[in-house]
């Protein structure tokens, strides 16, 4: 398949300056003002471009370049704000000038039908972009930023929530302490920014190719240490329309069973906590019980959110479901990490919550798509699987299955290849 005409290119070394991180939001104020002004111009340009594309079947080159620069600039500003990149960006959205950059192909022929109904067609992408990046769905005007420190322009508004904001806040703390951006956070942000850029490229008529939510296109780098909880997807994307239609009710027996199991799992986790604190590792039986519980959660989440098709079993047995978890056997765990597990798990649960809302969007769109086409789009399916994997890792961390922290980068579909420092990773998302 041809690569998407809008691609994010990452050439970031993960190093962050503590001083600029501390004042990042304030430092961004001139960019936010300029972005607001530019947004007004982009709105007018997009309006003209719509008529021109409708008439000529392609966007005029000057307008295309102007809007491409706008999308590129907005992505630079967002990358700067969310700490996905370190340097202060330029004001013109120059290509190749920033570590998190956007490549945009020259104008191509576009379908007049898709152009005519562009705004309507863009609604699902805008909703998903909003849940990933937050604020992408906003209209004109300004809103108070989510951090309460400044007002942000609404088109590329930083205020609407979204996982990017949660990750940015956590990254802010991490960068202040470590002077380095966690790899997983940066890769997630690059992915979210790529989807945002593609969405706005679509809305602003830079292309008629629909944004792809697939974290696998292209995949991010694998994490430095292999996670103890991994997801395995063997789903053929076929969906039974009948079971999709009634999915919300078919899950009910599982919901009841999961609730009962959760009570037992809570007690098992408390026992496991004491055991791990005392012995440095948990009992095999407890580990197996809690691993089955977490796996069962992943199975029913995949079923409920249309990430998989078959009705799952009730036992959380490994290898029985097309969206499955591979969980490592019990290993030694740090007693310090065990002692403070509940507090340490909190940031991961924030991210998990954000990805949970993304999963909900995936489920809603998957429901409609599955019902109409009998299939699940690959991008949505993979995004759902990624969100389930992160949530499962957060569960596994909390339930003491591992002391390895959940990894937020969408790396699942990465091909093993040697990583070279500072080599551009095409869309490290």
């Amino acid at each position: 398949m041809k690569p998407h005409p809008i691609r994010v290119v990452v050439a970031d070394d993960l190093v962050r300056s503590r001083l600029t991180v501390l004042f990042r939001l304030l430092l961004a104020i001139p960019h936010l003002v300029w972005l607001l002004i530019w947004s007004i111009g982009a709105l007018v340009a997009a309006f003209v471009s719509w008529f021109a594309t409708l008439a000529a079947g392609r966007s005029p080159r000057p307008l295309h370049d102007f809007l491409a620069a706008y999308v590129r600039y907005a992505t630079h500003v967002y990358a700067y704000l969310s700490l996905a990149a370190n340097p202060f960006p330029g004001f013109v959205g120059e290509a190749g000038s920033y570590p998190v950059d956007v490549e945009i192909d020259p104008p191509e022929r576009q379908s007049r039908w898709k152009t005519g109904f562009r705004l309507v067609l863009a609604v699902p992408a805008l909703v998903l972009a909003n849940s990933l990046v937050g604020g992408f769905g906003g209209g004109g005007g300004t809103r108070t930023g989510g951090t309460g420190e400044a007002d942000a322009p609404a088109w590329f508004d930083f205020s609407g929530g979204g996982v990017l904001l949660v990750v940015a806040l956590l990254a802010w703390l991490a960068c202040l302490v470590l002077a380095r951006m966690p790899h997983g956070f940066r890769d997630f942000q690059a992915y979210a920014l790529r989807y945002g850029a593609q969405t706005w490229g679509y809305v602003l008529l830079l292309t008629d190719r629909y944004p792809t939510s697939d974290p696998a296109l292209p995949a991010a780098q694998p994490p430095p240490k292999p996670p103890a909880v991994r997801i395995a997807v063997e789903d053929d994307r076929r969906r039974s329309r009948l079971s999709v239609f009634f999915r919300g009710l078919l899950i009910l027996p599982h919901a009841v069973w999961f609730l009962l199991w959760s009570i037992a799992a809570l007690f098992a986790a408390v026992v496991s906590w004491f055991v791990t604190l005392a012995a440095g590792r948990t009992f095999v039986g407890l580990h197996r019980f809690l691993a089955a519980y977490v796996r069962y959660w992943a199975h029913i989440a995949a079923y409920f959110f249309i990430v998989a098709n078959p009705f799952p079993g009730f036992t959380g047995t490994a290898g029985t479901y097309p969206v499955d978890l591979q969980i490592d056997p019990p290993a030694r765990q740090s007693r310090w990490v065990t002692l403070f597990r509940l507090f340490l798990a909190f940031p991961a649960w924030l991210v998990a919550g954000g990805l949970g809302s993304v999963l909900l969007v995936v489920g809603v769109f998957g429901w409609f798509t599955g019902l109409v086409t009998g299939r699940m789009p690959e991008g949505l399916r993979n995004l759902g699987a990624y969100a389930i994997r992160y949530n499962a890792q957060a569960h596994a961390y909390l339930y003491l299955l591992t002391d390895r922290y959940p990894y937020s980068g969408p790396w699942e579909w990465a091909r093993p290849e040697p990583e070279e420092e500072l080599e551009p990773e095409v869309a490290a998302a």
Partner: protein
Amino acid sequence: MGPARARGGAGAGGRRRIARRLPLALLLAAFAAAWAAGFYLLWQSDVPSDLDLPAVEASELLSAAELEEARDYERFLRIDFLLAELTVLLVFGLYARYGDRFTRESAAGRIGTGMLLAMLGFALLWLAQLPFGLAGLWWERRHEVSEQDYGTWILESWLGLGGAFLFVCLAILIVMGLAGPLRDHWWIPGGAVFVGLAVLFAFVLPYMLPSQEPLRDPGLLAATERFARDQGLEEAPPVRVQEVREFTTAPNAEAAGLGPSRRVILWDTLLDGRFADAEIRVVLAHELGHLSREHIWKLVGWYALFAFPGAFLIARATRRRGGMREAESVPLALFVLVGLSFLALPLQNAFSRHLEAEADWVALETTRDPEAAQALFRSFGTTALADPSPPTWSYVLMETHPALAERVAMAEAWEARAER
């Protein structure tokens, strides 16, 4: 082998066969006797067996216009009901034939897959019955019997389907769980478990009905105390008023619960001024009659009479598909269950009418006010648009209460008997 010896061998084989089948035959005979005894006991009633009901014409109860409206109203609902029932049979018939294909939609074990197949069966049924339900609602709204909007109705129906899913999963868990170790004999403990569940359901039902408030009318409360005493109840059960006027204008009441959960529930449409206090007292006495004559227990007993043979027939019918151990049998089991329920409908309705007639009789004995009873039954013709004398097929298949003409006739018969 000579012919005489062959005859002797055949005779011995026949005797062995008879000896082998004798215990089963005796067991079946004992079961049939127990069934007949149970039926006889449940059919006992306070209504005198020699009661001679006078002929009451529908035209004596309602004016020509009222009668026409009630008949017109019920005619549509009857056809709607019949079509819906036929659709149920058709859907489950097709599902029994093709439903096992959905096993490939499951990654669960045999019981989980059985649950999925059962839920999908009910899901298909819900879809197929939706138009009939909506048509019925449209008709009720048109005649101002229902005031529920379509969206709320669909939502409630959808949520109800969720409840049905949970129940059917529990049923499949029990049946398939028992069929694992017991194979074709699951129906013996299975029938007992289902009767137990029926008792549990009868007990908790009053707590599940929404929007209940205690009855506050002192006169009606005093009447309740008096009637309960007269009917031999140790203490008067609580009387609750259920708010339904948002959805319907039809009057109704019910007795529900077992032991400590027993109560009488009056719909607030009964207390909106359309009915005189004497008529409401008849309703109270009727519902208390259900409780004093243990009708809820009788209904459970009636259910037990059918639960065991029904479970046995399902076990037999599904044997060729591997029995209820196998998930593939579930669609066929559903079809058999629905078919048997349809066949049992006339008997079920007859028993229900029998109990209602007894409650009417007890109410007449308690209130000793046949005029109020007759006025109440007549007003059902105008407020609930009930046909006083429905066609026989509809009476047999649909009516859980005696026809209004029969109820008025019973009040007249009681009066005549009391004057003697």
